[in-house]
Each structure stands twice: as structure tokens, then as C-alpha cells.
């Protein structure tokens, strides 16, 4: 698309080439606007889901929100490839999942017991008495402690399987493994969890 001055003769138009706005500049501007709108739409649609995924691993609201922002900044950086992505939801969850795991690995120095107890308080417990709420919080803390003891492969599959909207195929897409691997890891994770919980109950 070229913007030319109206009312010029042909020769004038030829010699006035410096007045033209280059095609590439206009195309770049239009493409930038389209990409910005596409990223904004992704934020509106998937920010909540990404936050929940991030929170399930990090168990801290501020860290989870940071992870979501970083994920969308990465999307903005690679917005050229947005059109090539087949399933935006799985793609975004995969991005935030990698960010979250990286942050979790780097923040290993912080004691996780604090996070677990705080999370147990955060979990909903409406309609319960104070005593029941305390028991529920203790139970949640115990479960989360057992989850943290699982091997990483089994723990990741178990955490992602808790999201109702993720099928096993989508979990496989997020983790980059096959669907049969997801199933076998989930089976192992449930076995291990049962053993860990029974062991914890026997100790009480």
C-alpha cells in the first residue's frame, strides 16, 4: 500500500519517490497492532487459568501473578509465532509451567512448610466450625506435604490432573510426553500417594 500525492503527473510521481511511505512501515504498523490485539485477547481469555496453574505449584499469590506476567511477556516476545500455534491454551500453560518449575527450582532455599500452612488456611472451608476448619487445614497440609515428597515426574502429572479442564492429551502436550506416559505416571503417583498417606496416618 503506497500513499501517493493526488494530482501529480506521472513524471512528477516518479521523481517524488522520496515522498512515499514505504510499504514495509505500514505493514509493520498494522501487524504490530494485530499482534497486540491478539496478545490482549489471550490475556483476557487465559490469565485466570494460567494463574491457577502457577499457584498450584508455587502456592504463593504474588509469585503466581509474577509467573503469569512473565509468561505473557514471553508471548509478546514471540508474538510472530502466534499464528503457528495450534492450541493456544495448552501452549500458554506449557509456557507458564516451565516458568513455574524454573522458579520453584531456584527458590528451593525457602522452607516449603510455611507455604503449605499458609495454603491450608487459604483453602475454602465454608460451613465448617472452627474446629473442623483447623482439622481440614491440617489435612490439607498433610496432603500437600505428601505431594511434595513425590518424584517430580509423578508430582507434575498429579498436579496437572487436578485441573478439570485439562484432558490427558493436553497434559501430555504440556509436559511434552505421550498420553500413555501420562496415564502410567498418574497411576504410579496415586499408588505412591496412597502409601505416603497411609504411612502418615499410621504415625499419628
Amino acid at each position, binding site marked *: 500500500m503506497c500513499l501517493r500525492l493526488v494530482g501529480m503527473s506521472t513524471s512528477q510521481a516518479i521523481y517524488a519517490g522520496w515522498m512515499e511511505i514505504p510499504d514495509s512501515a505500514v505493514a509493520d504498523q498494522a501487524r*504490530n497492532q494485530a499482534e*497486540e490485539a491478539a*496478545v*490482549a485477547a489471550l*490475556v*483476557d481469555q487465559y*490469565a*485466570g487459568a494460567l*494463574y*491457577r*496453574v502457577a*499457584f*498450584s505449584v508455587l*502456592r504463593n*499469590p504474588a509469585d503466581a*501473578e509474577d509467573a*503469569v*506476567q512473565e509468561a*505473557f*511477556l514471553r508471548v*509478546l516476545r514471540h508474538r510472530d509465532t502466534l499464528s503457528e500455534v495450534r492450541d493456544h491454551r495448552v501452549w500458554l500453560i506449557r509456557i507458564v509451567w516451565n516458568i513455574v518449575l524454573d522458579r520453584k527450582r531456584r527458590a528451593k532455599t525457602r522452607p516449603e512448610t510455611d507455604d503449605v500452612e499458609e*495454603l491450608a488456611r*487459604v*483453602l*475454602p472451608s465454608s460451613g465448617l466450625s472452627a474446629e473442623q476448619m483447623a482439622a481440614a487445614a491440617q*489435612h*490439607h497440609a498433610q*496432603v*500437600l506435604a*505428601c*505431594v511434595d515428597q513425590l518424584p517430580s515426574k509423578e508430582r507434575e502429572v*498429579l*498436579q496437572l*490432573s*487436578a*485441573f*478439570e479442564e*485439562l*484432558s*490427558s492429551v493436553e*497434559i501430555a502436550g504440556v509436559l511434552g510426553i505421550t498420553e500413555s506416559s501420562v496415564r502410567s505416571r*498418574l*497411576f504410579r503417583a*496415586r*499408588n505412591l*500417594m*496412597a502409601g505416603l*498417606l*497411609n504411612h502418615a*496416618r499410621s504415625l499419628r
Partner: protein
Amino acid sequence: MNPQSQNPIGPGTPDAEATLRLIAALPAPQGLEDRVHAALGAAFESGRQQPRARGRVLAWRTPHSSGNSWMRTAAAAAIALVVAGGGWGVYSRVQQPLPDRITGAPARISAPGGFGSDGAIRTPQTLTGPVLTHPPEAKKTGTKAAAGKATPHAAHAHSTPELLPQGAHAGPK
């Protein structure tokens, strides 16, 4: 994925997965999208001010002064000379006449167990056969009179008629 329907394990696991599902179902904080939009807007503006990298490998500097143009020309000429010299060297080596070589055909090896051509004589021995030292004796199958009348010339003509010329036939006409 519905964990309840796929859970083949004991009573402890549903509790655990219920806890994980509670965590997964926690709502996102209010205004999360707005804060993300704001962060993206700031990043987008800063990205606009900096030109986007387009995977350019080499950024050739534009010539600001013509003072070093002769150096560039000399460097280009040197590169061209080196390339041309190398090419000529390769070409001249390749163009040298190769000595003629006679390559003998490998001996044929007959298949084991098959028929061989060892000792086969392709030329009949009759061509270089034995030379007769005595003339062969005339056959005595006919009468003596007939044998006496017959001249040696006629006998020879009779025996090899194709060797005689056309008009020199000994027989009466």
C-alpha cells in the same frame, strides 16, 4: 480428566486429589488481567522504541567517508587475486595429460564345477596338418586298361577340375 472415575487406588488418594482440586479451583485475584495488560503495554511501548531484531546476521556499515575506499578496493582485488590464483592452480593441475595406461583384462575364471575351455582348440588342425612326403598311390579299384589310358594330366584334371582354367580342359569337345 476426571480423577474420580480413574482412581483405582485406596481411600487415601481421593482425599489427596480433592485437596489438589481445591487448589486448582482457587479463583484468580481481582484485577489480574488489568495488571497483566499494564505490564504488557509497558513492554510493548519499550519494544516499539527499540527496533525489533529481524535476525540480521551482518550489519554492513554505510561508508561515511571515501578516504578508505582505496583500501576496500585493494582488499577486494587481493581477494579476487587469491581466488583466481587458487582456481588457476587447480585448473592447471587437472589439465596435465595423463600417461597412457594399458590395463590388462583380468583372466577369466571359470565357474567351479562347470565346463571350462581349458585345452579347447578353436582352429582345426587340418589347416596346418601333416605334409605328405610321398604322392599317394592311385587306387586300384578300376581296370588296368583304364588305368593305362589315363594320362597323369587327365587324372590330375579329373581329380581337381576346379583348379584348371576354363579353356585348358584336357577332354575332347
